[in-house]
């Protein structure tokens, strides 16, 4: 391939990348809690830093390094501005999983001689729960707070769980499956009063709901790039400076990010995360209103057409772009198979060998048979009203088709109580 041909190819690819993420023939994307497409404006901001404006932000001896450092620091300021933090309190990571691990293990290890108890919640993301299990194996004590049917923790239980050995409370702001918003401000106030650090996994919250680390007394906050229309592979951890939170780094190396996270910063990704935060800060209010209207439209349309559907998690304390609905008597994986033209996710993990329904839904007290019938519908920046209407009609039609061949639906119609039958568990 000649050089100019190669250049033309790249130019075409860039032009495609900067289009809105909607391609003909692909399923309608309703899985915005899994990931979001990178906003074309973010891509545009990132592009020069792969090549024309490349450099190692840690190089001190030449303009490439200085320029790269300026760009990284600008990105850091944009993130800080969105959560009302000081840029010096933000460190870049590879994503929310790393941020959560660093927050939990880093703080636990640093203060282990004085305190050894962590409080978290049963509906946290797997990476928080798994990091906590790991700490338990190393001798730390972990309290897993239950949640109510609305998906929210009980603040009195939280207060009662804090003792003089508690080093940190880690509660997510927004749940990834059911979208419910925990009472972050109240949790922050309790933690501050009791002298306990407050870490919150905000992967699903940043850019969706207003966050203010001062007002909410947040000491550590995990941030993800690809959940907020930024690139994959980048995230951040907010670490409070006053009163100072200290942590043991997970990585050893060149001492970047104030010694808390060694490794060369990925310049284009840092720029992209910053740009994504800046857009979120500017557009969050209008976007939330638009999404809420579409979310309600979708939910109402489904409710009008289908009896016996149940929303999982509280509707009012919830981000605008999420619905998690149990379609009684229709198994979730079977339902998704009939919705090939929609990209949604099932609340049940039946695709794995375990056959276990979602631990989040189980924690809300959703019965196993209903947990098996749930779908998560995630709306986002590029969702249109026409897509929502189409999705509602397709889901309703498919649920009706599958109910017509469901023995459980038939029994329910005949007035047989499904719980009265002695089922053989298998």
């Amino acid at each position, binding site marked *: 391939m000649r050089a100019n041909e190669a250049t033309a190819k790249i130019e075409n690819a860039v032009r495609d990348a900067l289009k809105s993420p909607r391609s003909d023939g692909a399923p309608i994307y309703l899985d915005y809690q899994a990931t979001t497409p990178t906003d074309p404006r973010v891509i545009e901001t990132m592009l020069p830093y792969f090549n024309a404006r490349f450099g190692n932000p840690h190089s001190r001896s030449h303009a490439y390094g200085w320029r790269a450092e300026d760009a990284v620091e600008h990105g850091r300021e944009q993130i800080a501005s969105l959560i009302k933090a000081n840029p010096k309190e933000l460190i870049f990571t590879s994503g929310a999983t790393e941020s959560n691990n660093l927050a939990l293990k880093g703080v636990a290890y640093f203060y282990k001689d004085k305190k050894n108890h962590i409080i978290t919640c049963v509906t946290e993301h797997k990476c928080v729960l798994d990091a906590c299990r790991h700490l338990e194996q190393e001798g730390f004590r972990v309290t897993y707070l239950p949640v109510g049917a609305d998906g929210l923790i009980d603040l009195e239980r939280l207060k009662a769980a804090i003792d003089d050995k508690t080093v940190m409370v880690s509660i997510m702001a927004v749940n990834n499956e059911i979208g419910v918003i925990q009472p972050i401000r109240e949790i922050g106030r309790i933690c501050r009063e009791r002298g306990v650090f407050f870490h919150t996994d905000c992967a699903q919250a940043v850019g969706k709901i207003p966050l203010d680390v001062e007002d909410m007394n947040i000491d550590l906050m995990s941030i993800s790039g690809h959940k907020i229309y930024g690139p994959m592979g980048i995230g951040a951890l907010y670490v409070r400076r006053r009163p100072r939170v200290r942590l043991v780094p997970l990585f050893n190396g060149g001492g970047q990010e104030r010694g808390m996270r060694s490794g060369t910063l990925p310049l284009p990704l840092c720029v992209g995360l910053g740009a994504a935060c800046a857009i979120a800060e500017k557009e969050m209010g209008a976007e939330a209103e638009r999404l809420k209207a579409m979310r309600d439209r979708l939910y109402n349309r489904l409710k009008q057409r289908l009896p016996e559907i149940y929303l999982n998690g509280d509707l009012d304390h919830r981000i605008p772009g999420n619905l998690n609905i149990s379609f009684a*008597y*229709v*198994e*979730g*994986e*079977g339902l998704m*198979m*009939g919705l090939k033209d929609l990209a949604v996710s099932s609340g*049940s993990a*039946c*695709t*794995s*060998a375990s*056959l276990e*329904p979602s631990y989040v839904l189980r924690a809300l007290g959703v*019965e*196993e*048979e209903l947990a*098996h019938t749930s779908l998560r519908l995630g709306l986002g920046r590029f969702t249109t009203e026409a897509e929502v209407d189409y999705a509602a009609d397709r889901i309703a039609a498919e649920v009706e088709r599958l109910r*017509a*061949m*469901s*023995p*459980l*639906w*038939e029994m329910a119609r005949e007035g047989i109580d*499904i719980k009265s*039958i002695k*089922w*053989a*568990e*298998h």
Partner: protein
Amino acid sequence: MAYSDKVIDHYENPRNVGAFDKNDASVGTGLVGAPACGDVMKLQIKVNAQGIIEDAKFKTFGCGSAIASSSLVTEWVKGKTLDEAATLKNTQIAEHLSLPPVKIHCSVLAEDAIKAAIGDYKAKMGKEAAE
């Protein structure tokens, strides 16, 4: 997960969906699985005086593989004697539908369902003879 063409075909065009009157003496009903496990199959056979399954119906709550397994079984047992139908093995179902390992339980359930339906029919016959 990628489903085989045969699973997709049975899922999209299920054969013999429906129900017979379970109180009819010529009908055997098998209800297996559990809602809490995410799979329930109801399989019914209608047996004639010669002991041949002349019709079969099913309803299934479950994934595409479960629906396909039960749909396939209703097709296979039609026209068979009760003894022939009782020899049906889950491995034949799994092989025909190219089920992946995590979906083998769907074929096991379908085998259980036809056996339960035959058992129900025989129990009814036994009762009738006793009366």
